[in-house]
């Protein structure tokens, strides 16, 4: 494996056949850069093995690894901390199924593991969904929240809570149905010989506004205790996640994330505009439809299991972009940032605060505070 620092210019020539020629031009490029101090972009690592050529920006890779380590640390801490504190070896013994683990095995595997893993996976799903919308619309305000998918899930759940007083399983089903129905309605209303981005968002905003009003009205008519319970669910909570919810919800999110990763390259072409994307061999419409469907599914699944956790979809891509110092939005760093945000907020909500608050509330305060700090910090650096 040859990993070498090179410039963005040379990496643009991807094919292995031109490998040596590209290296030559890169060398020429860097001599030119030395003499005239022209900046060619960020430091990048390029890997070429016969037909395969991959290029990573050094800073992005380092940030992603750091984020992954942080997520793992937060998840491990979530397994160890609690009213029945465990040491790390005890957690490891429980995880590996050591017969001597005893009671700690139940604590770790049955009580803490589903919730901790769900926090990281759901966070990643929301971050990735936000990245898709912000990348497609090239608009920092766009997120699945704004076009009403999570509002639809909340409507479905509210109907179950307020009108039917249903069980938790019915609540999940209601939320899932609400999210899916909203997505279908928005898509049908926006469809007119194809779905154009701007029209989709305006229709989404309109539908979302109606659903928000409907939700407010349901809350007004409900009894105080019922409305309070509904409001707590609406803030987003992982409190009722068990193995079943984790396996179904988390598994779906993971599959969707893997599929989404395959669209990373065409999505970057789409950011250049449809014409440029066509010219570089990307079919714009099918790609856009596919990634929107994935992002909507991610949001609907997470909202149905944990409530409409706001803000991660909006903040994670922006935080990731500032950490990686990339010009555009990319999915993988955004997903990892989302995972850190939700896992960290879950940890803080459970162990740092004196009162019990839904994780969604804590996420917004932590993630929002950090994003504000980043915004100010970024300006100082300029």
């Amino acid at each position, binding site marked *: 494996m040859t990993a070498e620092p090179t410039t963005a210019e040379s990496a643009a020539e991807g094919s292995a056949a031109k490998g040596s020629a590209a290296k030559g031009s890169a060398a020429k490029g860097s001599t030119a850069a030395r003499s005239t101090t022209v900046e060619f972009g960020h430091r990048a690592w390029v890997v070429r093995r016969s037909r395969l050529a991959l290029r990573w920006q050094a800073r992005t890779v380092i940030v992603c690894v750091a984020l992954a380590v942080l997520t793992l640390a937060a998840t491990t801490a979530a397994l160890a901390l609690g009213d029945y504190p465990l040491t790390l070896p005890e957690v490891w013994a429980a995880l590996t199924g050591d017969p001597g683990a005893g009671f700690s095995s139940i604590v770790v595997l049955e009580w803490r593991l589903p919730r901790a893993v769900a926090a990281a996976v759901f966070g990643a799903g929301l971050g990735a969904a936000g990245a898709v919308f912000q990348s497609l619309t090239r*608009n*920092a*305000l*766009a997120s699945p929240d*704004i076009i009403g998918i999570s509002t639809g899930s909340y409507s479905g759940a509210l109907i179950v809570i307020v009108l039917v007083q249903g069980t938790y399983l019915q609540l999940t089903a209601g939320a899932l149905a609400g999210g899916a129905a909203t997505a279908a309605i928005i898509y049908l*209303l*926006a469809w*007119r010989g194809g779905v154009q981005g*701007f*029209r989709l*968002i*305006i*229709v989404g*905003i*309109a*539908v979302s*506004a*109606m659903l*928000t*009003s409907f939700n*407010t*009205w349901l*809350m*007004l008519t409900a009894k*105080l205790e019922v*409305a*309070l319970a509904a*409001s*707590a669910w609406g*803030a987003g909570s992982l409190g009722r996640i068990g193995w079943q919810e984790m396996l179904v919800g988390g598994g779906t999110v993971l599959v969707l994330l893997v599929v989404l990763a395959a669209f990373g390259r065409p999505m970057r072409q789409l950011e250049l505009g449809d014409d440029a994307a066509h010219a570089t061999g990307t079919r714009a419409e099918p790609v856009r439809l596919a990634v929107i469907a994935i992002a909507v599914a991610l949001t609907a699944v997470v909202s149905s299991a944990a409530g409409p956790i*706001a*803000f991660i979809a*909006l*903040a994670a891509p*922006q935080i990731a972009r500032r950490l990686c110092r990339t010009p555009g939005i990319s999915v993988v760093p955004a997903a990892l940032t989302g995972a850190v945000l939700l896992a960290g907020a879950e940890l803080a909500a459970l162990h740092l605060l004196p*009162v019990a*608050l*839904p994780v*969604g*509330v*804590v996420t*917004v*305060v932590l993630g*929002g*505070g950090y*994003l*504000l700090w980043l*915004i*100010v910090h970024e*300006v*100082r650096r*300029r």
Partner: protein
Amino acid sequence: MKIAVAHDTAAPLTRRRVVGLLAALALLAALVLASIAVGSRAVPLTAVVDALIHDTGEGDSYVVWSLRVPRTAVLLAVGIALGVAGMLIQALTRNPLADPGILGVNAGAALFVALGIAVFGLTSPGQYLWFSFAGALLVTVVVYVIGSAGRGGVDPIQLTLAGVTLGAILYAVVSAMMLLDPRAFEQMRNWNAGSVVSRGWEVLLPVLPFLAAGILLAMAVAGPLNAIALGDDLAKSLGANIGRTRVIVVVAVTLLAGGATAIAGPIGFVGLMVPHVARWIVGPDQRWILGATLLLAPALLLAADVVGRTVIRPGELPVGIVMAFVGAPILIVLVRRRKAAGL
């Protein structure tokens, strides 16, 4: 050739603008009359006109002057304020998704009202007024300081993100306070719906000077905003003072949206939707958009309130809730029918 085409389209555009504005004016006038006539006690149109001319102080005349006219005035003021604030913020940020709440106005108002309820034990909309206004102003100042930190003054993207982020944080704090205090939750869910019930002259008049100042500022910057729409560099070369324009816009949006929220609570969607509709009718010139918004925004709010008063008579639905159901279908039909223009 291109010049000839431009000449061909200029005349229809002017006609379209004039016809559009006249139609909007007629619609607004009809809705004002409807808003005075419709309610739990229906007043026939002839009686409305009669009562407006001769104030006898009893019967229909009493209902009209003591209840309907103040309420209609409040709706007009709130509608104009929210619509113009929305038009300004979309022009400033060059973002079609921006609404007046984006600078943290609603979140600041909500936080202070929640504090007022939880800490000072407030109970009525009249008492919320100054808490709400102070919160809106204070939070916008904070957003502005964060959004304009660093060299080069206000950066629209930075300002937008700062406003949305701070707004989200404050809303989270409010919802935490509400979840921990059921009594505050009970009052906040009513305030949150956005309503003009029992808001009369005593709520409108103190805020009116702030709204008027906001409208005057908006009129002053509508021209320069046209230049800014071309991008910062081109605007500068055309002689627009970008920094001053942005500061004026932020002040105007704060006064308008803060004042409206102080009167009626958070009413969403009107500031987001009306500028789009206005733009589709009169084209991209901000001065014409301002004119159309001045007529269309209060019309939408009045229509929503009239519907809210009729659907579950003798009870009524808060205008903030009905608004989306009146406005959203119109927006969907329009965005499907026309080739929707961006900014």
